């Protein structure tokens, strides 16, 4: 296609946020407690983007490589915006936060760090987290914090597409072949124990009730988005008990360490490298 339009300056990019928070002309600086809240949200998106990125060249078809890659890039964009903003409170860049923190300093909820499993399992997690993000960013777009509200207003359109993608695939896999249904059920049983943690208390959110969205309040909109899809796919919510969680407190599963090692090794081996 000829002459793709240049990115409009009206679009809120991580670079635009970085420009507004650094240097002498800095106009924006996150308050410490708001930054702690943004850090958790940013870690959720960063770790999920890293997981989804590993589908490139491994999805069932080339077209799904690209679809999951696009979703990963959208999610990475959310992570970059949130971490750039969080870092402004502590004079740290998005890269400082992504590459030079250790496992215990990460605040992602555990569903995001969970290994991908097979395609069906990835799709079930995408259904869950895309519904969660949709509810979250809709609420956050009303935040009293202008930067968080702007980041959420941009993200909400993107996660709506991610939810649509996951919903279509969930129905197709669940009602497809005996094998695809078996894998979807296995994925649902593996993913669902992580769901409750998404709505568990987050001390960082409680500290800034006007800027943040209370996690417990997201359960109802989440159910309203997810349960009809499960019904269409003739799937039932598994009865398995919820896992203990604790990601927002720095408690993680054994899956996060290897993910971070892979994500961080290059930046740590060659600090400041540009490519």
């Amino acid at each position, binding site marked *: *296609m000829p002459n793709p339009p240049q990115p409009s300056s009206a679009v809120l990019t991580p670079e635009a946020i970085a420009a507004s928070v650094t240097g002498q002309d800095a106009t924006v600086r996150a308050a410490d407690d708001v930054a702690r809240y943004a850090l958790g949200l940013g870690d959720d998106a960063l770790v999920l983007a890293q997981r989804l990125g590993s589908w490139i060249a491994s999805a069932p078809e080339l*077209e799904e490589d*690209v679809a999951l890659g696009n979703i990963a890039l959208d999610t990475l964009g959310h992570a970059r915006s949130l971490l750039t903003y969080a870092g402004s409170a502590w004079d740290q860049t998005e890269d400082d936060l992504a590459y030079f923190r250790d496992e215990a300093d990460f605040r992602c909820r555990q569903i995001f760090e969970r290994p991908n499993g097979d395609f069906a399992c990835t799709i079930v997690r995408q259904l869950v987290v895309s519904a969660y993000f949709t509810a979250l960013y809709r609420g956050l777009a009303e935040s009293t914090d202008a930067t968080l509200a702007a980041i959420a207003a941009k993200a909400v359109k993107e996660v709506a597409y991610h939810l*649509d993608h996951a919903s*279509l*695939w969930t129905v*197709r896999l669940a009602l497809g*072949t005996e094998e695809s249904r078996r894998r979807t059920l296995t994925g649902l049983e593996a993913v669902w124990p992580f769901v409750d943690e998404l709505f568990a208390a987050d001390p960082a959110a409680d500290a800034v009730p006007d800027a943040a969205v209370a996690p417990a309040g997201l359960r109802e909109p989440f159910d309203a988005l997810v349960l009809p899809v499960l019904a269409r796919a003739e799937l039932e919510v598994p009865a398995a008990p919820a896992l203990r969680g604790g990601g927002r407190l720095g408690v993680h599963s054994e899956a996060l360490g290897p993910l971070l090692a892979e994500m961080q090794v290059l930046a740590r081996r060659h600090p400041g490298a540009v490519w």
Partner: protein
Amino acid sequence: MTAEPRRETWPLWEVFVRSSRGLSHVHAGSLHAPDAELAVRNARDLYTRRSEGVSIWVVPAAAITASDPDAKDAWFESPRGKDFRHATYYTASQAVPHL
């Protein structure tokens, strides 16, 4: 498993994209997808990543009937030399100043 033979690849779809200032959908390429709903989404992911369009059509490649490339001469030679089919062939009459 179903009794149907396993299909090795998804069917092919042709993609047509209309740019924001375009008047018509233009052929952008092709892709594989299991059905129409996913085909139009794959088209979004493959062919509108750089803001190329605001509307997408997908058509099963099998539904397109094409002219025979080997019959090009028989089909497309005839209009050559028939300049009278172009408006510019004709001189405007002086009595019609606003044509």
